[in-house]
C-alpha cells in the first residue's frame, strides 16, 4: 500500500479549481461531490481491503488512481480494439440497399466514416438509417436484407486501423477478428 499512500499524498483536493465558493451558492448538490483527505483515505482503505487490484475514481477535478503493488496497468494506450462491431440501435427488418434500388450501402472493403449509412431498419411505416458510428473499413456484413435484426445485434464488423499505416493493415488482414 506504499504506492497508494504516495498517490493520496499527491492529491490536493483543496486546490481543485471547479468547486469554488461561487458554485457553493449556485448548486449545493455539486458540493456534496467534494472529496476531503479523509474521504480519500477511507476510499483507499476500503480499496486496500477489497479484492480489486486497481481503482480509478474521478470526482470533479480530482482524479484518484490507485493500484496494488504488482498490479499491471490495465489500459495500455495500444489496446484499443482494431475491429469493432456496429450493433443495431433498434429492432427492425434489415434493408441492405436503398429503397430506390442500387448497390448495397456497404460491402466488405467499403470505407466508412461515422455518418455513413450502412443499412436501414424497417419497423411498420418507419425506416431508420443506421450509421457506422466509426471510421474504418468494413470487414464483414453480418446480416442479410429482409432479416429481422434485434436490438443490440451486431450488424457489421469494421476494421478501424488507419489505412495510411500499411503495416497495421497487413496485421489486421492477417488476423481473424476476435
Amino acid at each position: 500500500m506504499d504506492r497508494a499512500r504516495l498517490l493520496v499524498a499527491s492529491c490536493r483536493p483543496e486546490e481543485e479549481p471547479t468547486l469554488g465558493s461561487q458554485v457553493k451558492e449556485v448548486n449545493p448538490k455539486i458540493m456534496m461531490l467534494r472529496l476531503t483527505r479523509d474521504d480519500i483515505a477511507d476510499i483507499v482503505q476500503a480499496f486496500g481491503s477489497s479484492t480489486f487490484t486497481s481503482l480509478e475514481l474521478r470526482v470533479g477535478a480530482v482524479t484518484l488512481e490507485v493500484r496494488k503493488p504488482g498490479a499491471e496497468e490495465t489500459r495500455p494506450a495500444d489496446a484499443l480494439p482494431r475491429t469493432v462491431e456496429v450493433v443495431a440501435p433498434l429492432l427492425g427488418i434489415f434493408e441492405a440497399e436503398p429503397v430506390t434500388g442500387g448497390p448495397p450501402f456497404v460491402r466488405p472493403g467499403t470505407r466508412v466514416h461515422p455518418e455513413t449509412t450502412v443499412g436501414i431498419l424497417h419497423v411498420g411505416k418507419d425506416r431508420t438509417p443506421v450509421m457506422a458510428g466509426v471510421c474504418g473499413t468494413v470487414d464483414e456484413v453480418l446480416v442479410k436484407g429482409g432479416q429481422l435484426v434485434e436490438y443490440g445485434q451486431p450488424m457489421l464488423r469494421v476494421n478501424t486501423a488507419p489505412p495510411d499505416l500499411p503495416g497495421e493493415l497487413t496485421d489486421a488482414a492477417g488476423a481473424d477478428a476476435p
Partner: protein
Amino acid sequence: MKVRRVLIANRGEIAVRIIRTCRALGIETVVAVSDADREGLAARLADRTVCIGPARAAASYLNVGAVVTAAVGTGCDAVHPGYGFLAENASLAEACAESGVTFIGPRPETIRTLGDKIQARALAVSAGVPVVPGADDIADSQRAISVARDVGLPILLKAAAGGGGKGMQVVHELCRLRGAFETATAEARAAFGNGTLYMERLVPNARHIEVQILGDRHGNVLHLGERDCTLQRRHQKVVEEAPAVLISEQLRDRMRQAAVGLAVAVGYEGAGTVEFLVDQDRDEFFFLEVNTRIQVEHPVTEVLTGVDLVGEQLRIAAGEPLALDQAQIHLRGHAIECRINAEAAHDNFRPSPGLISEWREPDHAYVRVDTHCYPGYGVPPFYDSLLAKLIVVGQDRAEAVARTQLALSEFSIQGVECTLPFLRSLLQRPEYATGSVNTRWVESVTAERKISVGHEGERA
C-alpha cells in the same frame, strides 16, 4: 385458425406463466425482451428470445412497432400481451390485425370502448348495470355543484380520459367544490389533453369485487365467480381472495349476472374482468370498469375452478368455442393471493431492486407460487416491483387464512427488501381474520403503524 407460435410481449412472472400454458398445449413461444431482461427466466424457458429494445419500457415493452415486427419476423401467428404495458392498447390489437397476426385479447373496438371511462359507464347503464350515482359531463363548476347536490357528498371528481390518480379530487364540503373542480380540470387537461371530468358519489366503506368473465367468437359468455380485491394500497392490490367475503348471496349473484350481461352487450371475446364497488353500508354494488386483459390475480380463480385462463385465452383467440358452459363452473374452497413486491415497506414502500441471494418458497400441495425469480436473479430497477404471487387454497376461508400465514412464514427472500414482513403482519390482524375491512383499510393501518413493516432479517 390454429395458434402454433406465440410472441409474448411481456416480462416477469406473467411471461413465465404464459410460457407454461403454451408448453402444455404444444405451442411454441418467442419472448420479446428488453435489453435488461435478456437473462431472465422467461428468456431461458422460451423457445426463442428476441430483444426488442433497451431497458427503458417506452422504447421496448411499450413499442407497438417493435412488438409487431418481432412477431412477424420470428414467424409467430399470435401475440400475447400479458397485463400492463400494451395489454389494453387498441393500437397493438389493430397493428397485429394489419400484419395478419392474432392479438390474444378482445377486438380493438372493445378495448377502445371499455378503456374510455365515459363510454364504459354509458354501456353499463344501457345494459342495466348500476353505476355509482354521478354524472360524466362536468364541464364547469356550476354543473359540478348541481350534480353534487343530487348525488350527495362526499363526492369524487375524476378525469374522464385517464387514470393513475391524475385529476382526481375528493370533496367533502360544497364550498370546496369550485376550487377542486378548477384543480382537477387543469390536471386532467395537462395530463390527458382533455379537461372534461366526471363526478361520482364517494363510497367510504367499500369493497372492491370483480367478476372474471370469458367470451368467445360464437357468442358464448360465462363467468368464473368473483374475486375480492379490497386490500389495496394506493390503488394497487395487495391481497386478493375468492369467493368474496361478507356479502349476501343475492348481491354476489346479481354482480355475476351483471358482469355477464355487460359482456354479452359488448360481444366480448376473450378473458376479462368486470370490476365493481360494493357499498357495505347500503348493500349495493356499482360498476367501476372492465379490464380487457388477463389480470395479475387470475390464479385465485384458476385454483378454485380448475380452469386455465391463459389456455382459454388461447382457445378463444384461435376461434374455438369455450370448452365449458356455466353449469360446469364450480368454485371449490377458498383461495388467497399475496403479492410479494421488492419494496421496503418500512421506508414508505421504496423500491428495492438488486441481487436475490436466497429464494426459498413454501412447498405444500395447497400452495402455488407464480414467479420469475430464483437465487442469483438480479431484479432490474426499471419495471414493476412484483417478485412473486403466493396463492394458497383451503376448504374454507379460515383454513385458507391459516395456511397463507404458514406459507408466508416459510417463504424466505434475501438480498432485496420485500413485502413479506408487511404481508405477515397484515394477515395477522383481527380485522383480516373476520374480513371486516374496506378499500381504505390497508392504508389506514399502515399509516397508523399498527402493523410491523420491519426488515426481513428482523423476524424472530
